[in-house]
């Protein structure tokens, strides 16, 4: 059994599984980073991902176009994030409770709509999922090539988003505004930045990413919708934001570590250890907690995270 672990094909397969399992977390982590950098914790993430997963699946099944499903998932994510913005930004309600409200509502809604469309069939309906696309030459690199460069298009998109988001946050005027709004909204307002609008835009863009991350689960990772398809990946993403200290690159690194653990447990299950498979399923969550325990003391939270901004209470 030990020999199988050090087998080359096991290793290549593990890299592939790592990237596949990391993709939805990468999308969601980047979306959450964008929201939190502007000062809003979006706990709606878990529900938004589930609605993205369900909507993407439903639209793809009825239209036959996978990318239309992804687009619909993004739009649903944006709509729910807009609701979050109304509650937490414009009304200034508790971000914790607003977000949990969005998650509970979206979770119920996803199951409600799915049941409405499909009833409770014995065999769940399926779609033809996204194919893997091999990048010429790169995918021929021995050992790591097949795992890294024979992936889904959405996985490559997630990769590309890392430099895009980093550049946006650190190298552009807009990024400066976003970070100022998250650190000191009163100062931002004084220099003419519309705090409400900036926060809303970040939430909505982040919601789109969360929705897409959810749709990856039903259109690439699997080809059907199950109620537990997201299974806490939204919460894991929030942990990865903390792990990455609100930095896109480090956050994605966390997502990849989670993807690795998730891929590893899948592979280990396949080796036939005489241990209940739930032990393996537990590993990624347990390790996420361990990681959080390790990094939380050093975390530098955006200073105005969780604080509602009320223009009328300036300086209060």
């Amino acid at each position: 059994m030990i020999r199988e672990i050090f087998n080359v094909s096991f290793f290549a397969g593990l890299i592939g599984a790592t990237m596949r399992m990391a993709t939805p977390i990468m999308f969601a982590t980047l979306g959450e980073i964008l929201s939190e950098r502007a000062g809003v914790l979006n706990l709606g993430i878990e529900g938004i991902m589930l609605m993205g997963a369900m909507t993407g699946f439903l639209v793809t099944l009825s239209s036959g176009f996978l990318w239309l499903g992804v687009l619909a998932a993004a739009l649903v994510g944006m709509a729910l994030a807009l609701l979050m913005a109304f509650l937490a930004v414009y009304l200034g309600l508790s971000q914790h409770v607003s977000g949990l409200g969005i998650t509970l509502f979206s979770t119920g809604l996803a199951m409600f709509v799915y049941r409405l469309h499909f009833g409770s069939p014995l065999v769940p309906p399926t779609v033809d999922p996204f194919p893997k696309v091999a990048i010429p030459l790169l995918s021929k690199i021995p050992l790591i090539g097949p795992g890294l460069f024979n992936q889904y298009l959405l996985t490559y998109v997630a990769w590309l988003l890392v430099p895009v988001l980093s550049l946006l946050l650190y190298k552009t005027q807009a990024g400066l505004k976003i970070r100022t709004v998250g650190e000191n909204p009163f100062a931002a307002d004084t220099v003419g930045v519309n705090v409400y609008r900036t926060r809303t835009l970040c939430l909505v863009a982040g919601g789109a990413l969360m929705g897409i991350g959810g749709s990856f689960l039903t259109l690439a990772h699997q080809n059907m919708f199950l109620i537990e398809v997201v299974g806490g990946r939204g919460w894991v993403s929030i942990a990865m934001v903390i792990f990455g200290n609100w930095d896109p690159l480090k956050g994605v690194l966390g997502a990849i570590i989670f993807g690795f653990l998730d891929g590893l447990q899948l592979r280990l299950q396949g080796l036939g250890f005489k241990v209940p498979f739930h032990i393996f399923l537990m590993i990624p969550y347990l390790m996420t907690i361990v990681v959080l325990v390790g990094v939380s003391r050093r975390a530098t939270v955006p200073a105005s995270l969780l604080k509602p901004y009320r223009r009328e209470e300036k300086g209060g």
Partner: protein
Amino acid sequence: MIRLMIVKREPLPGWARIVIPIAAIVVTLILSAIPILAAGGALWKSYYFLFYGALGTRFNLLETFVKASPLIFTGLAVALAFRAKFWNIGAEGQLLAGALVATWIGIYGTWIPSFLLLPMVIAAGFFAGGFWASIPALFKTKLKVDDVVSTLLLNYVMVHIMGALLFGPLQQPGSSWPRSSEILQAAKYPLLLPRSRFHIGFLMGLAAVFLIWFLNTKTVFGYRSKAVGANIRSAHFGGINTTVVTLQTAVLSGGLAGLAGVGELCALQYRLIMDISPGYGYSGIVIAMLGNLHPVGVLLSALFFSVIIVGAQTMSRMTGVPTYIAEVIQGMALMVMLVFLLLTEYRIRVLRVRPRMRAGGSRN
């Protein structure tokens, strides 16, 4: 262009605290018409069966009380924690921890005198839930680990611990399903009324409501816990050991959630199954908020949501609206209540601003 202006208002009189949750419920029920109509349900028929299904017959009415029992416990658990700003979103995992340990003792406690078995099962379930909640509380106070994330993640860890045990040492011998053997007769909750499942769990819930009310308002612990929630820094400088208070609150909160699990096990299922809780821990969040974190409010809103959950079954059978409508209503209720709570402290003024009138309106 429309702008919302949110201004502080004079504190509302006491009656508002009762009127506001009721208004929130009414608005939620009106909003529920959207998913009901979208599902093709006839509106009045749907509402009728929603309430008839929960209150219309003796059996259904008692089922509503049966369903309310775990909701009271998880609602109290969340309310107690939120009051101290310990963001315990982990009532689900704590419930499972309680049920798990109760199962263990309920099956293998043959050496325990039978009159002591049930009290021991209950106590063990309480402490199991409390223990599971103490972990994130310790992480929060000692290591600054965000309690929302840690309590949520621990829910999944507990589900998988339970799964591993139900496919392993706790699995009923000879069964291929993930379920335990039945607990001993002496570990079961007494049933109170014939031809129903009405059990002592509801009365325990009432007792818990009273106890938590007493604790909150009449004891030093209640005062300290509230002070920590109001402002942890002033509480600290005021001489309160905030670490200890947070831990105590967490253990009590988790323990209450654990009792919800004990009730489901010892009064309804009699054996541990993976689906022992359909998300009672998460419902507890909605119930605590709708109850304004007050024990009596929790009791009333737990009753309201058990009406929705039980009634949704009948409504679904009669009109074809999926039972998940209950979950949708819970989510909506939480958001509506949140908006209404804002109205107790603030006034929302909708201003129509013409852009050129606003100084610097063209900026950004």
